[in-house]
């Protein structure tokens, strides 16, 4: 096929429509889309470059499979000159084709063959389509001439074997269909066997061959063993027939603080797929349901970017409830423990990166050296691990990897990463920094360069090798590192009935509005308008959320960082953002939302911001469902947090504060950090020494604190309004081994920063 026949405008638009945005392809010469690929090839010389060949394919396919309107455009653009040029083009493309064929490596040959057959297939379809249309006579005539012109440059074989080839393709298709059916039947038989609890010997082998699309709905949940998981989690329908998922879903929508982030991400998840395309369509709704429910179930993870594509993938084949449980299985099952990837601090990510680097060094030392030389940051792997190669390899291949991933576990991630380095070794060794990043981010996702079966075979071999070398899993987490499995009870919100939650939401809402009006009237007369506004905001937060607003400095980036070293973690999912109670105008428009997303007010003012969830055992094995309903209720009432502050007391919230150190330190959800509650200093923080020592009760670590350099900013304008009073220092461990310590000194909040 030659693109040269195409009228340029039509070509442009076809490219625009047919691709999701592909990042720049400047340096690897992947730009034949704008030029003629045939001449591009001639100019480029090196036809061995798979990337070059890969990009030959989309153009013609798109061209062929275009609808009738496109074809009409073609017909219109057709004139006599093209007919004159056609024979010349034919010769040129023939030569090029021969040259290409002679230099291709095997997988590429297969690839071009496949593309050829696809083109023929597309042409057949287009012919069938245009046959259905009743075209005016002159257009029919020109169509015929177009057809001959189109055929001409495509290939030499086409002329002689057009009919034969079509016949062959049809035969192959028929055989394929029978093969597919045969495989499905085998799977069905095997599933039946498994239902009867007979061992399925061939399961492993068949998973590696790929689970048929139609049967993923039955096989995936089974591979993840979610029946057992649901039993362990005591997912027993209540009197209304609702299981944990349904109960969670109803509650979570009222109170999950991840709704906003989830909603943002849904809009960017599989949007190139029809079923997810329309805003607020059925599947997007399902996605919201699953993610919101999960954020309230596994509160340590909450919602993390990357989870949306996993849930989206499940929702393509499974229903909501199954997707939810599959998600949970991936997070907590021993084989997968994706919890460790997504939980703040990403403890498993670092471990995987390190191990992967080690593997590349051991098995592909040349690549390893090359990448080291280029100084490639490890960040490119994040999406590999977080999404198990979704969006990093073509979707069909990703599905095959997922089949295996669900069955074999996270060793597949490492093996596939290594597999990429192995299969593309030559290409990578030629890459510069930019080309490598391009390859990993977009190149492989656009075209992997090998057929899926070949990739899977290679992956299997590598996995086996890793297993025999006992390197298929990274070394266990180091002592004292962040836990990679949940340590808290699941779904604490289930302890409350829906009515209770609704009541509390309503109460908090009315309380905050009452408080606002009182504060406004009291303060307006006393201070300058600006300060009054500031104070009003502060009190609004305090009253509405039961949280103490912090001086401006504490709301800095450092404080927002996730701790990497703390053991005691906030039991709640991270707050979407800080101080947003003061910015109700920043709320997303909700009027067009067909399902109920709690408004900012209800989310912010929800009782879950005032109360900590019951403390589950800090360490120890994963607790399936944690406490029973009653136990959880008790835990709620004996929770450390003070009860919600009395509605009327706008000033009492201020009065209470000095003595109420708990709320000062641990209610700080505005920043995603963990705070050590029981910290005491070895010295009284009274004199402005440069260094002090603090012992952390929980970990027993000594923290040396020195006066920081960048903290000379005044404690914040709010301090003159809020008298903090003496309080024990609160210590926050941040990533990057920076620890922030806040120490109250005679009512003045000083900040210290330390470097450990």
């Amino acid at each position, binding site marked *: 096929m030659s693109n040269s026949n195409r009228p340029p405008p039509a070509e442009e638009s076809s490219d625009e429509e047919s691709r999701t*945005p592909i990042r720049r392809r400047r340096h690897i010469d992947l730009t034949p889309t704008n030029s003629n690929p045939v001449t591009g090839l001639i100019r480029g010389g090196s036809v061995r470059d798979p990337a070059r060949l890969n990009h030959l394919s989309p153009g013609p396919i798109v061209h062929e499979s275009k609808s009738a309107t496109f074809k009409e455009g073609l017909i219109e653009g057709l004139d006599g000159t093209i007919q004159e040029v056609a024979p010349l083009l034919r010769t040129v493309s023939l030569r090029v084709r021969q040259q290409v064929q002679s230099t291709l490596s095997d997988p590429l040959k297969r690839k071009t063959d496949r593309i050829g057959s696809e083109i023929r297939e597309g042409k057949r379809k287009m012919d069938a389509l245009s046959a259905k249309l009743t075209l005016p006579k002159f257009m029919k005539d020109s169509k015929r001439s177009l057809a001959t012109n189109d055929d001409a440059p495509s290939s030499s074989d086409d002329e002689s074997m057009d009919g034969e080839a079509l016949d062959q393709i049809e035969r192959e298709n028929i055989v394929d269909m029978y093969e597919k059916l045969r495989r499905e039947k085998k799977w069905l038989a095997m599933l039946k066997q498994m239902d009867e609890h007979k061992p399925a010997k061939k399961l492993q082998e068949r998973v590696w061959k790929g689970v048929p699309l139609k049967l993923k709905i039955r096989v995936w949940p089974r591979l993840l063993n979610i029946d057992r998981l649901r039993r362990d989690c005591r997912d027993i329908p209540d009197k209304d027939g609702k299981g944990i998922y349904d109960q969670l879903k109803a509650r979570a929508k009222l109170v999950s603080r991840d709704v906003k982030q989830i909603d943002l991400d849904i809009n960017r998840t599989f949007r190139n797929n029809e079923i997810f395309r329309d805003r607020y369509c059925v599947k997007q709704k399902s996605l919201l349901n699953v993610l919101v429910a999960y954020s309230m179930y596994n509160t340590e993870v909450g919602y993390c970017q990357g989870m949306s594509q996993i849930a989206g993938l499940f929702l393509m084949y499974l229903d909501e409830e199954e997707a939810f449980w599959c998600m949970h299985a991936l997070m907590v099952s021993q084989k997968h423990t994706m919890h460790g990837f997504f939980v703040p601090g990403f403890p498993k990510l670092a471990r995987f990166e390190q191990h992967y680097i080690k593997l590349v060094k051991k098995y592909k030392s040349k690549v390893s050296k090359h990448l080291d030389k280029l100084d490639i940051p490890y960040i490119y792997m994040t*999406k590999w691990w977080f999404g198990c190669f979704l969006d990093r390899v073509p979707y069909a291949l990703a599905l095959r990897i997922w089949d295996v991933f669900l069955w074999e576990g996270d060793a597949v991630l490492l093996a596939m990463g290594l597999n990429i380095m192995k299969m593309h070794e030559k290409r990578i060794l030629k890459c510069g920094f930019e080309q490598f*990043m391009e390859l990993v981010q977009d190149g492989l996702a656009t075209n992997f360069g090998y057929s899926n079966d070949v990739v899977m075979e290679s992956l299997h071999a590598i996995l086996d090798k890793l297993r025999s070398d006992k390197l298929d899993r990274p070394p266990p987490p180091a002592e004292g590192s962040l836990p990679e499995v949940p340590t808290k009870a699941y779904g604490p919100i289930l302890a409350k009935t829906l009515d209770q939650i609704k009541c509390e939401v309503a109460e908090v809402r009315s309380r905050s509005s009452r408080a606002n009006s009182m504060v406004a009237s009291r303060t307006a007369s006393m201070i300058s308008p600006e300060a009054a506004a500031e104070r009003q905001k502060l009190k609004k937060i305090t009253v509405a959320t039961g949280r103490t607003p912090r001086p401006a400095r504490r709301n800095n980036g450092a*404080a927002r960082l996730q701790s990497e070293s703390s053991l005691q973690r906030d039991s709640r999912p991270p707050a979407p953002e800080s101080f947003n109670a003061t*910015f109700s105008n*920043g709320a997303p428009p909700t009027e067009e939302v067909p399902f109920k997303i709690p408004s900012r007010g209800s989310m912010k003012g929800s009782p879950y911001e005032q109360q900590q969830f019951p403390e589950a055992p800090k360490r120890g094995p994963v607790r399936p469902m944690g406490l029973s309903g009653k136990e959880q209720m008790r835990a709620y009432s004996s929770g450390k947090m003070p009860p919600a502050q009395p509605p009327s007391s706008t000033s009492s919230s201020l009065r209470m504060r000095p003595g109420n150190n708990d709320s000062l330190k641990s209610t700080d959800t505005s920043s995603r950090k963990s705070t050590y509650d029981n910290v005491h200093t070895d010295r009284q923080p009274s004199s402005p020494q440069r260094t002090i020592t603090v012992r952390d009760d929980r970990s027993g670590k000594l923290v040396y604190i020195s006066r920081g350099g960048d903290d000379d900013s005044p404690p914040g304008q709010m301090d003159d309004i809020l008298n903090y009073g003496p309080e024990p220092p609160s210590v926050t461990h941040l990533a*990057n081994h920076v620890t922030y310590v806040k120490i109250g000194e005679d009512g003045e909040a000083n900040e210290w920063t330390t470097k450990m």
Partner: protein
Amino acid sequence: MSSAPHKKALLKVIILGDSGVGKTSLMNQFVDQRFSNQHKVTIGADFIMKDMLVDGRLVTMQIWDTAGQERFQSLGVAFYRGADCCVLAYDVTNSTSFKNLDPWRDEFLIQASPRDPEHFPFVLLGNKVDLAQDRAVSRKKAEAWCQTKTKMPYFEVSAKEAVNIDLAFQTIARAALARESQDTQDFPDFPAQVLLDCGNAKSSSFCSCQ
């Protein structure tokens, strides 16, 4: 320009800001001159490069597009280092994203730990100005904020309608270029908190004396 024989400059730029402010879209508009509503969630960070002419000099922009969710901030250590300019982006229809600029900036300075952080070049972009009716942060407010941050350049842009994008990135490139030529050894080889660093600095200065 007379400075033609300059070697091609490689400028590293990091773009930061809250989730959903349009960092990826800004980048796509700048690099591919197109806006798509079908881009993906950025997980970890993505990388793009683009060549451009700045004052007659060819420069290569190495742009890192980051994930906006806060918990991903901790991964910045891996690639902030060596940045020549940091672009802060917020959404003019979302005042929270404006409010969070301070934390993003502070966090960048902590993790990248450039020498002379006071004068590290930042550029502020207020995205989505095409949604004028939903505007929540006034231009004045943003400009006032920039004034307090050593006169950070500010642009009101729209990735969707390609408003001001080129101008903004020209400025970004210029700022980065100024930074890069001023001091190539901007970043210490080791994070500041590693004690070794002091020793290193000393020994290197010792060497240079010789």
